[in-house]
């Protein structure tokens, strides 16, 4: 394939959605990119980082999404084009700044890409960003394919400069993580120098005037959207049913119509610009028909706005109907698929649809019932989190006061999954919240609260959002143990660097922001533990829990097991001594596989004994201390 930076206009390439977004920014002459990692958005910045030197860009992983917005805005007010990207959860973090940038205004084109994750494939929620963007009152574009994503990003920069505020492009998993054929455009050469024109102000006062200005900008955008190339109709002149779709709903709708052979009866409006609503465009489309089905990801956002248009124009008063999530024809939760649209069309048109023979269906259902078992995800073999949570679990048991973990967002959340975790995490909300909730619980002593709480967070999360919560706990004299699970990685999202690892987004050396130094500066007692020292750590944790004396920080430090090079020799040979393991007669009821649950310890059904799966075991040796009969043995391999 050609490089992402190749000036090969007109050439067709197969691009990953987020790669196409990066290409669109390059075609628009972007100079600065800032982001915080989060699936499904991370590859946008990764792709720009890979070409940053060649294309002369400044690209950074910011400490969190709010700072990313500020870094991007800085470039914009200095006259440069900038792109900011994050997942839907990141929009919440960024909001405090975003809801003032819209008022303060921008100069160089500023584009925010927010990647939603319908069904929450890799997220703690499937929240729809669009209501927030409507509230921010900035232009909103929704691409349906990698091609459209590239084209919209490029155009959004122009629009942002034309109106003097930022534009938002809402992608979603099925656009960002879809690979598709893309026709490349020309790469703009821009050699603008950064300069902040001090005759201009980028502030939010006078407040009422700024609000009125924003409304005027939105009115201007509405006129532009009325004629946008991203909004169009395909189908018969007067369809008996018309689909209005946005985002990934567009291709599913096209497919469903073709699949059910409804081309002569059903037409499709593709709406690429969803806020502000292009009222006149929609009124013209509505006049074609008396029945409309809205197809969009997650919330009935477009549906509600369309109902306003249809109500104001009198279309609804003529007995015409809008179907969608409110009418129950589409689900108001979960992800769209061709099937969801096919089912709605079958209900609304009465066409018959039998995807496959009844007999085949019966066989398939039987196979599913008899054979198909699930694949649970859990901590990897050798994962430091397993050792840490094992330690905490045992410390709680020894303490005996019904202790629990106040959790956070990261791989350690696997504690909450039944198959592999220990289920000691009883509350988990957002990044950094573990510590904030811990701080609050640690102040409930006056109401009789005496349960020990361990607030956990990962190293990347510590920098992102946990520092203010830690300061809060210190300042307010809360009694809480904050445990930082430092595995030297933003492991869950794909090992992007963060301020603690000494490397920047381009893979170059960067200063290390030292967690210990920060805690010392806050005058908070701190100790560092190796999570694999289970016996020692358990004792110490019990002591710490009994000592209700302010905030304590424990750093559990050991690199993620996946960071180990595949050809590196394991530290230990681990095996089960078959004479010591009494198996099913032991009375431990398979303690190692039932309670400790490392994927490398397996139960040999034929011999009724535990066994180490050498293909899976990474030789961490942690399990040797958990067997009540001391039957798991280890021997150092490295000299």
């Amino acid at each position, binding site marked *: 394939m050609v490089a992402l930076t190749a000036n090969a206009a007109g050439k067709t390439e197969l691009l990953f959605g987020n790669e196409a977004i990066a290409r669109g920014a390059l075609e628009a002459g972007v100079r600065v990119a800032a982001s915080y990692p989060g699936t499904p958005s991370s590859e946008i910045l990764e792709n720009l980082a890979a070409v940053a030197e060649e294309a002369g860009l400044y690209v950074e992983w910011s400490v969190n999404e709010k700072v990313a917005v500020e870094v991007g805005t800085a470039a914009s007010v200095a006259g440069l084009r900038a792109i900011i990207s994050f997942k839907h959860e990141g929009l919440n973090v960024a909001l405090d700044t975003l809801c003032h940038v819209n008022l303060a205004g921008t100069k160089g084109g500023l584009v925010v890409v927010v990647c939603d994750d319908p069904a929450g494939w*890799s997220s703690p929620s499937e929240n729809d960003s669009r209501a927030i963007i409507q509230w921010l009152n900035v232009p909103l574009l929704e691409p349906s394919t990698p091609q459209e994503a590239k084209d919209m990003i490029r155009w959004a920069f122009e629009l942002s400069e034309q109106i003097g505020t930022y534009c938002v492009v809402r992608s979603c998993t099925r656009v960002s993580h879809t690979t598709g054929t893309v026709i490349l455009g020309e790469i703009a050469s821009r050699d603008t120098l950064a300069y902040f024109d001090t005759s201009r102000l980028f502030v939010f006062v006078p407040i009422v005037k700024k609000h009125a200005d924003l409304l005027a900008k939105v009115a201007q955008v509405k006129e532009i959207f009325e004629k946008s190339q991203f909004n169009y109709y395909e189908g018969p002149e007067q369809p008996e049913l018309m689909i209005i779709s946005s985002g990934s709903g567009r*291709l599913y709708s096209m497919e469903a119509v073709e699949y059910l052979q409804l081309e002569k009866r059903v037409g499709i409006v593709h709406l690429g610009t969803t806020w502000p609503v292009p009222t006149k465009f929609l009124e013209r489309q509505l006049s074609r028909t008396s029945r409309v089905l809205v197809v969009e990801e997650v919330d009935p956002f477009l549906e509600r706005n369309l109902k306003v248009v249809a109500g104001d124009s009198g279309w609804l008063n003529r007995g015409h109907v809008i179907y969608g999530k409110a009418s129950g024809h589409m689900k108001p939760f979960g992800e769209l698929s061709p099937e969801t649209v096919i089912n709605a069309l079958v209900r609304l048109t009465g066409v018959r649809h039998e995807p*496959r023979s009844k007999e085949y269906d019966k066989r398939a*259902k039987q196979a599913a019932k008899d054979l198909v078992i699930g694949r649970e995800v859990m901590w990897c073999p050798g994962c430091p989190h397993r050792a840490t949570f094992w330690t905490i679990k045992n410390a709680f048991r020894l303490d005996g006061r019904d202790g629990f973990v106040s959790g956070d967002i990261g791989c350690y959340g696997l504690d909450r999954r039944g198959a592999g975790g220990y289920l000691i995490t009883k509350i988990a909300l957002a990044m950094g919240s573990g510590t904030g909730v811990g701080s609050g619980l640690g102040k409930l002593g006056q109401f009789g609260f005496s349960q020990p709480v361990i607030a956990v967070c990962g190293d990347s999360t510590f920098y992102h959002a946990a520092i203010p919560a830690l300061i809060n706990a210190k300042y307010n004299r809360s009694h809480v143990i904050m445990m930082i699970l430092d595995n030297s990685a933003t492991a*869950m999202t794909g090992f992007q660097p963060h301020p603690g690892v000494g490397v920047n987004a381009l893979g170059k050396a960067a200063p290390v922001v030292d967690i210990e130094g920060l805690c010392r500066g806050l005058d908070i007692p701190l100790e560092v533990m190796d999570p694999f020292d289970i016996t020692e750590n358990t004792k110490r944790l019990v002591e710490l829990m009994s000592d209700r004396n302010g905030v304590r920080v424990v750093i559990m430090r050991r690199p993620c097991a996946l960071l180990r090079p595949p050809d590196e020799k394991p530290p230990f040979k681990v095996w089960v001594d078959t004479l010591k393991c009494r198996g099913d007669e032991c009375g431990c009821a398979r303690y190692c596989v039932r309670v400790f649950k490392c994927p490398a310890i397996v139960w040999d059904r034929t011999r009724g004994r535990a066994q180490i799966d050498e293909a899976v075991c990474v030789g961490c040796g942690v399990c040797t201390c958990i067997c009540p009969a001391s039957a798991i043995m280890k021997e150092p391999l490295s000299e």
Partner: protein
Amino acid sequence: MSEGKLFVDPLNIIVCGVGGQGNILVARLVGRSLAKRGYIVTIGETYGASQRGGDVMSHIRLSARQRYGPLIPPGGAHIVLGLEPLETVRILVDYGNPQVATITNTHPILPVTVGMGVTQYPDYDELRQAIAQLSGQVWFLDATEVALCLGSVRLTNVVMLGALIGSSLLPITEAQLEEGIKERFPKDRLKPILEAFSKGLSYTRATGCA
């Protein structure tokens, strides 16, 4: 312009397996090779927390006419390339139909709950029978064994890719796909990869479907 012909348009392929088996790489090599020949290609990837042993699948849509979405409708697969037999059944249950052509690795990867003794991996003969009953034509091969003989279990996906090309179900030649492999990997790593590709290829070419 596209050369050759798809036996159906759109042609829907699902590559499935377990996280870490390299399913996405196979999908992208196939996709890229066909895009190069002028087909309109869409690949949808579903992986969630796959890195930690979950099931994964890629949907490949090929068309000479128009762009399709990243998800294949239920019952709509034309080819299933299964890198693991249990995963092959999981996909056939949802996306199979009486005509589907299935090419599957026979070597199991046990879910962690099997090791724990909580669940049992299905009996191999029953799995094989179910795959055959849910497919129009089917090829079975132990691609993991072939890969291990070549020195690394990580080559399993390339053996399966070879098997897909050897089945002649796609309008691309051995040489065209080899070209894609050569573009994707550094020269010093190519030898075992090309060997794995060719082993898989000759397997389906020589045996025909079961």
